[in-house]
């Protein structure tokens, strides 16, 4: 029951839900939530493969770096969101089309 496939399926479902959130939501913060889900799904896959497919801990390292990158991405992304809100007074993603200001 607790084999590789179950982890892969959990991560796949998480990934797909993340994608759905990213597409369905128009709120940039919500899209960032979807991105977090997708990143975590990938990190879970790494650890699962590291446990079941190899004997070393490189997968752990990879998922650690994913966490680091996710943290950096969240910080910069949310800074951009706040700046965007200061300028446009909205965080609707369809308003972010001009690539300037």
């Amino acid at each position, binding site marked *: 029951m607790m084999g590789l496939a179950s982890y892969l399926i959990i991560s796949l479902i998480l990934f797909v839900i993340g994608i759905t959130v990213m597409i369905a939501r128009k709120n940039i913060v919500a899209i960032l939530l979807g991105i977090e889900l997708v990143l975590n799904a990938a990190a879970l896959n790494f650890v699962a493969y590291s446990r079941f497919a190899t004997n070393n801990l490189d997968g752990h390292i990879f998922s650690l770096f994913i966490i680091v990158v996710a943290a950096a991405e969240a910080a910069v992304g949310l800074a951009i969101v706040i700046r965007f809100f200061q300028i446009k007074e909205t965080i609707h993603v369809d308003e*972010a*089309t001009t690539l300037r200001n």
Partner: protein
Amino acid sequence: MEYTVGNIAPIFLAPVLAFIINAFFGRKLPRQGDWLATLSIFVSFVFSARIFSDFVFGKFATDFFIHKTFTWFDLSYGTYIWKVDMGIYIDNMSAIMLLMVSGVATLIHLFSTWYMEHDEKHGRFFIFLPLFTSAMLGLVLSDNLFSLFIFWEIMGFCSYSLIGIYNKKEKAGDASLKAFMTTRVGDVFLLLGIVALWMVIGSVAYVDIYAAIAEGKFTGQAVLGMSFATFTAICIFLGAMGKSAQFPLHVWLPDAMMGPTPGSALIHAATMVTAGVWVSLRMYPLMVLGDITWFIAVIGAITAFGAATIATVQTDIKAVLAYSTLSQLGYMIMGVGVGSYNAAFMHVITHAFFKACLFLSAGSIIHSVHEQEMPKLGGLRKYLPYTHFAMMACTLAIAGIPFFSGFVSKDRILGDALYYGFMAGQNPLLAIVPILGFAGAGLTAFYMFRMMFLTFYGENRTHAHHDDHGHATHGLAKPAHGHDDHHHEIHHEHLDLRSNVPLLILSVFTLGFWFCGTVTGQEFGKVFGKKTEWFKVLVEAPKVERFVNHAREPFGGIDLRDKTELPHAHYHHQSGYAGPNPDDHKLHSAHTIGALASIVIAFSGVFLAFLMYIQHTLKPWATKLPGLTTLLQNKYYFDNFYIDIIIKKGLLGLNRGLAWFDLGVYDRFAVDGWASVNRVLFKSSKWFDNVVVDAIGVDGTGVAVNLFNLVLRILQSGKIQFYFIMLIMVLASYIWTVNI
């Protein structure tokens, strides 16, 4: 210590730096940056002094020279070589010249800080003065004619700016234009000569020219019926004539006194006019090879005598000095012509010192009295004792009184000229050279002492004139007090160190023994021994053979030559007259006769002036010969000839013809005819443009772009989620198609 860029280049670069700083920030600096200019020249002087001490006090062999080059630009490809080198060439002559130029220029700058202090053109004057000096220093440092020409032109521009610095006065503007245009005539020929040399030798570096002379590359080539060497030598000498103001291109120099007096001092003494003599000396082997030394000698003699005669009737103190400069330059050129290489160069140096001193003294007088017409001066000896002392020393020097420097250098030239004219077996007609030379020497003594007597002796005439003589040479506003106070003003000499110290320093160097080590400058009367004859030992005409296999070294390289090797012994005559044979016993007698004769002539000139202007026993001859006086006062009608005949009749007529050609032929047929052809072409192209290009090409493109735009607008919506959907879809299709 080796010579590198770091200890040679500051000589040239320090004044350039001062020029740049003064040009851009001079107004913001205290005292408008004159201290900076003076300091920069002093830096040059310090570096020059080091080189001088190395060369003169025996660190190197007497024929050692420094030659360092770098490639300025290189356009050669394959076998076609077109490379221009720049570089530095320093030999004994350069070392002496550098020290003279930088030293005299330092003193002139120092004097100028006093002279120009309250002048409205103060700042501008100190922009051009260091540039002028740096150009001269660069010219002396140059190793080739090409960079020499560059500095030559910079000096021309600077002299133009300095002469016309009071640009509100029309005479000053005219004088500056005249100087520029007249020297331009010579410059064209100089450039022609340089290009011609380039064509034959493929280089214009001195060493390459010397090597080419030694290898005989000039033989057999003829231009305009004369040999190639003659052609290039004449071209280069014409350039030197323009710059050194030789007859008949001398007309600019007397007018050049329109500028501030220290600027005139710099032009007349240290920098510009000596450039012509310098290039003649550098190209001396070419002049000998081209066999034009007789021409040079004659031109120099005519200038020396003619200018002296004009100087006798001038009343403006600066005009007298200007014509005396012309005359002395004639002696230098004559010295080059008669093969008196060493003495000609020595005259450059000695003349620089006493002429700078004379001009500065004149500036001191003018600044104190606000008057430069000699009839309105007089009796200034009491009021300006230091100036009187300095000016008297210089006058003794220029007049050729024994124990003074002018006697040494001029009488060597005259002795060689005597030998050249009567004993060297030349054309008998060339006897005119020494005759004019000696006559000019007598006149020199006469007019210089005339000037001294009129200015410093007799009763003071300054307060007798209350008419508005103005401040002819001064751009500065009138002093707050009126004209009545002038005689009060001169009661006290300005005891300013900046005005008197340069005069006194310069007057020290009017003594002869600094340069020759003998009392008289001749072989007899030698008191300090052979060793102090450093000038004669160090300066001699270039020996072209030793440059044949000369390998030039780049900047930063270390000179591997033996610096203490003994000089090559011999110098073969190429052709023509290349100076007197030192072993000729006739030469000694010529020198003896020349020295005695010139002493007699000089003293008689002085005595004449004494009789005329102190004792008044003789009436000034000007009143006896009114026709001659008028001729001389009009300067032999040279200016009138140039302006009325050449410019008004010749050039204006030519211009009218050209204008007619331009309007009648070129404009009517070429321009208008081409226009009507164009109209036809235009109509057809308009049709083509409207129908083919506009309708089909432009509008059709627009329609097509609109169509594509419809598609692209949907794809390029800027909505990131749409892009993300596309990304996912592409990824999915990729995974689906790849079989794992």
